[in-house]
Structures are given as structure tokens and as C-alpha cells.
């Protein structure tokens, strides 16, 4: 079993860590550039691209109009022809506006051209609930990326991963959907300042070791699962919390090794429970580790409803720390 992932470096916010990755990669390679609505002088609606316009100018930091189809489609066209675009959509939800460009062009144009072209680009997708932005601006849609072969899918849950995974994404010759949780932008944590600090794709992080149950959590559910694990530890119950970090590629090896040790698995995500990423992970656990299981694999996800606009109600839709704690206790009792 791999050791617990321990991050080091100076404390930095999650959004600042993304910014640092962008700035470092644009300094490293002049073919890297960015486009999106208000990414220029404003620095993005969430301030993530702040400073880039001043340093790199309007040729490499391009403000677009309100045109998601163009943002993603032009990024694909540019990626096909020798530059490395990092496109920002203001909300991950908007990738449906550019559905053809994301799920057909980004995902398939290498394959459809017999492998003769490549699409080295990153699509930054601010994801998840943030407090009161409603059903069309709060979704967790990462499972869509898993359903279209050709896309890599990244979900950082710490500032260090936000930086290291984005740098890896920019250097990857394949198209990457980078889901950054907008509710975590202000979360601080240690972040290495090495300009070649890269977090590899397909390597899950064990956030906490424990022997009684495996909890696979992504994004905002990682800190909540860790908090739940802390509470249970007070009662002598030890959860092992695994953060896959990338859903494509997915490090099932680490998850299976953990389940074989613990005999129980709970998968937690912010996406709706039905056909969410947890459905896939749970299925793969039972396929690979059925005889190691002492109980069914459980999933905890958002309710199968749209996200209500009220900040209080939206928190009732997605799994809370209490929900994770309660589910873990119940599953342990089975």
C-alpha cells in the first residue's frame, strides 16, 4: 500500500495555485496561451487568470465574447495546428453549450484522423456549488467526460494538486477537462513552488490511512470525508480516504488494494448519484474485489434533483460531512 500523500510548500489558495500553474507554463512555453470570457484585463470572473494579461499581452490572453462554441472550437483548431490553448468556460455547466466542440471535436478528432492529429489543450471548468448560483451554474458534470473516450478528466481537491495537475494537463498531448471546484478557490494549503512540480495523472492520493473502510471521494467531498474520518476516529473507527485526483485515467489499483484491506467501500461525490462517477467506481470495485467485500459498495452523491438556487437548500442537496459520517457508520454496521 502506498503511503499517505503529504503535500509540502508554502501555503497558497487553490485559485492562486491554478494561477501559478498558468503563469509558470506560459513562461515556460510561448506556445501556451489562453482564451475565455473576461480572462484578460479582468482576470476572469473568479480572478483566476489575474496578472496574465499584463505579463503576456492580448495575443496570448484573449478575451472572447459570449461564445462558448467559439471558445472551445477555436481552442481545438489551435491545438490541431501547433499551439497549446488553455480555454476557460466561466462555469463547467456551459460545456453543454459547446457540446459538439467538447464531446466530438476535443474528444474524437485525433481518433477520427487515424491518429495523425493531436489535440493538446486544456478546458478549465469551474465546477460545483458555490452558494446561490442555481441549477445551471452549480453542477458537477465530470461523469460526462468519462463517457466520451478521448478526454482526460481531472478534479483537484487540494491547492497543491490544483497546481500540479494543471501543469501536467498543459504538458499532456491529449485534451484534458480540468474541473476546478469554485467552492474551494479560497481553500489554502501547502503548494510547492518548483516550476517543474507535476502531479501525474492516474495516481490516486491516499489522504488518510485506515483499516476499516475505504472512502473514495472527489473534489469538495475530499475535505468533508476527511472531517468525517476525524470524527469517526474519535470512536476508534478508522477510514481510509482515497482521492483519485483524475477520473480518466482512473487509478483503480490503489482503490482495489485499499478495499482488499478494509473489506468495505463508500464512494462519495458531489455529482448526482444516478450515473455519477461513483456508479462506475462502485461497479469496478465489485468486479475486481467482490470476494474481499464484507458489505455492498455504497454510493453517496447529490440528490437526483437540479441544484436549487437558495444557498441553504443547495447544501442539503449535496453530501455533507454529517451525511458521510452517518453513511459510514451505517455501512460499517452491515
Amino acid at each position, binding site marked *: 500500500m502506498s503511503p499517505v500523500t503529504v503535500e509540502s510548500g508554502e501555503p497558497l489558495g487553490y485559485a492562486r495555485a491554478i494561477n501559478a500553474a498558468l503563469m509558470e507554463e506560459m513562461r515556460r512555453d510561448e506556445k501556451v496561451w489562453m482564451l475565455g470570457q473576461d480572462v484578460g484585463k479582468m482576470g476572469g470572473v473568479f480572478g483566476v487568470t489575474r496578472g496574465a494579461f499584463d505579463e503576456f499581452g492580448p495575443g496570448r490572453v484573449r478575451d472572447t465574447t459570449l461564445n462558448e462554441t467559439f471558445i472551445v472550437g477555436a481552442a481545438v483548431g489551435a491545438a490541431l495546428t*501547433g499551439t497549446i490553448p488553455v480555454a476557460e468556460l466561466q462555469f463547467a455547466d456551459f460545456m453543454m453549450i459547446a457540446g459538439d466542440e467538447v464531446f466530438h471535436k476535443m474528444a474524437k478528432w485525433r481518433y477520427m484522423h487515424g491518429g495523425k492529429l493531436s489535440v493538446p489543450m486544456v478546458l478549465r471548468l469551474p465546477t460545483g456549488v458555490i452558494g446561490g448560483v442555481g441549477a445551471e451554474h452549480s453542477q458537477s458534470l465530470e461523469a460526462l467526460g468519462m463517457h466520451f473516450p478521448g478526454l482526460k478528466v481531472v478534479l483537484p481537491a487540494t491547492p497543491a494538486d490544483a497546481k500540479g495537475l494543471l501543469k501536467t494537463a498543459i504538458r499532456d498531448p491529449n485534451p484534458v477537462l480540468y474541473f476546478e471546484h469554485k467552492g474551494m478557490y479560497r481553500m489554502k494549503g501547502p503548494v510547492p513552488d518548483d516550476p517543474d512540480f507535476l502531479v501525474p495523472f492516474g495516481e490516486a492520493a491516499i489522504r488518510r490511512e485506515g483499516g476499516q473502510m475505504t472512502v473514495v471521494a472527489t473534489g469538495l467531498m475530499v475535505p468533508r470525508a476527511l472531517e468525517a474520518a476525524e470524527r469517526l476516529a474519535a470512536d476508534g473507527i478508522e477510514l481510509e480516504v482515497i482521492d483519485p485526483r483524475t477520473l480518466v485515467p482512473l487509478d483503480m489499483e490503489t482503490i482495489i488494494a485499499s478495499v482488499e484491506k478494509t473489506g468495505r467501500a463508500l464512494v462519495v461525490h458531489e455529482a448526482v448519484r444516478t450515473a455519477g462517477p461513483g456508479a462506475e467506481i462502485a461497479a469496478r470495485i465489485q468486479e475486481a474485489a467482490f470476494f474481499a467485500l464484507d458489505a455492498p459498495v455504497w454510493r453517496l452523491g447529490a440528490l437526483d434533483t437540479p441544484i436549487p438556487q437558495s444557498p441553504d437548500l443547495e447544501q442539503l442537496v449535496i453530501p455533507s460531512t454529517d451525511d458521510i459520517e452517518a453513511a459510514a457508520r451505517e455501512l460499517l454496521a452491515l
Partner: protein
Amino acid sequence: MTELDLYREVARIRALELLLNRYISEHGFGGFWHPGLGQEGIQAGAVAALRNDDYLFYAHRGLGYALAKGMSPVTLLADLFGKTGGSVGGKGGGTVHFVDPERGVLGQGGTVGSSFVLGAGAGISAQMLGTDRVVAIFFGDGSSARGTWHEAALTASVWKLPLVWVCENNGWAISVPIGEQSPTENIADRAAAYGVPGVIVDGQDTLAVQAAMTEAVARARAGEGPTLIEAKTLRVRGHFEGDKQSYREDVVDGLDVPRDPLKLLREQVPAEDADRLEVEAKAEAEAALEEVLAMPTGDASVITEGVWV
């Protein structure tokens, strides 16, 4: 390109069109073939104004775009029939899809009209890398309805991207005539909304197409931005080969091409040269088809290749 060179290209494209028409009528075809019969002059004339390293996003009507750009008819027919000897190995995005990065041939929007935004992106790369390459994007009057057109035209014009949009207006979006889909008579009229030149040209006049394209390419290469060229043409055959065209009253009988671009161009070249080029074109097409029909299709091992780098 001289009149004779252009004649050679139009004749080569025509020879493939007629050969495919015959082959499909005799043997059928597993897919949809969208004939470009009668539109060869636009494809040859426009591509003639491009450099080898200029980018091409072609449309779905015929093989002429890529043939004129220098791709081999063997490769193109192999792609049409889904053979391993094609450029995409049987994995393309509809009929027909081919690629040649060395010649700037990048693809077509399998979802029709999607290459507007992709082409704009290629223009951004050219602009950023300072290569002075130009991007030609072919489309039909039908795909001019797509929102991708508006989004690409708006921003490409503001950013002065090195693009030329070539609309082959054949008057039909599958079954709906242009008069029922466009509030203005000309697609080119829309250029005014984007502050770019909108040029109307006779699509049956290959030399006129080449001249309009040459001017548009020069403008793009000089950093002055995109141009919209509307080549007026007609659809001789159905939307796909086998389309009975029950919606249409002006169906052309057989393979006669009204205002045939090949015949119009023939007036500009010596008859003996024209005869020779037509014989060569026919022989090239027939030899290519024979070679392609003997090729294998891919086995299962190729299916999972090429998803990732």
C-alpha cells in the same frame, strides 16, 4: 495556376465524380456519398489560390478539395471505402473524411458547420506563430445557418484572423431551397454584419473563383482579416447518391451539368491538351479505384489505436 493546370484539376475531380457515380450505381455503397458533380470548378479554383502549407477545412460534397490540395486519389478513395490504405484508416467522421497534415488538410466538420470555429482556431495558431499561413473553410448554404458561423465570423473579424470562408451555394440545404432558409438573396450579404468583404462569384467559372480566392487569400495573408466568398452553383445530383429528390422540380436528368465548369474552362485551353488531360484523368481515377478495391479493410486491432497520444 494557368488555365491548363486548372483544367487538369477540374478534369481529375470530374473523372472521380463520374467513376464513383458509375461504381455506386452498379455496386451500391455502404455509407452516404455526397456527390460534388458540377461543383468541381469551385473546389479546384479556390484551392489553386492556396499555398501547400495553407490550411484546408473541406466540406462534404466530393473529393475535389483535397485532390486539388495534392492528396492522392488512392488515399481519398481508400478513405471513402474505409480501407486501411486511407489517411484515417476507416475511422473518419462520416463520408468522406481524410487528413494530410503535411498539406494542411485538416478535416471537415462531421457535424456539418462545425469547422467554422475550428478554422478560426487554426487562424489563431497561424497568427500567434507568425507563419502567414491562411485557412480556407468550405461550407454550403445549408451550414451557413449554424450558430458556429456567427460565433466564428464575429470574433475572427474582430481579431483579423487569416481566414477565407468559401460558401458553395448550390441552392439546396438537403431538401429546403435557399429562398426558404435565407431572408436575403445572397449569403454574402451577411458579410456586412461582420465588417468583412462579401464577394459573389460565378461558381461555374473556375477562373473567376480562382481570381476571387487569390484576392481573399492575399488579404488574409497580409493580416487584413477574413473574406466571405459566395460561389453560386447548383446541385446536379441529390443530397446523397440515391436521394430521389421528390422535393425538387428541377431535377437534372442523368449526369448533364448545366453551365458545366469543365466545358466553360475548355474554351480557354487548346483542344488537344484538354483531350489528353481528360484521358489521363480518367485513367488515374480508374487505376486508383482498382487499387483501392483490392485493399483490405482494417482488422479489429486498429479499433483501439489512436484514441490517445
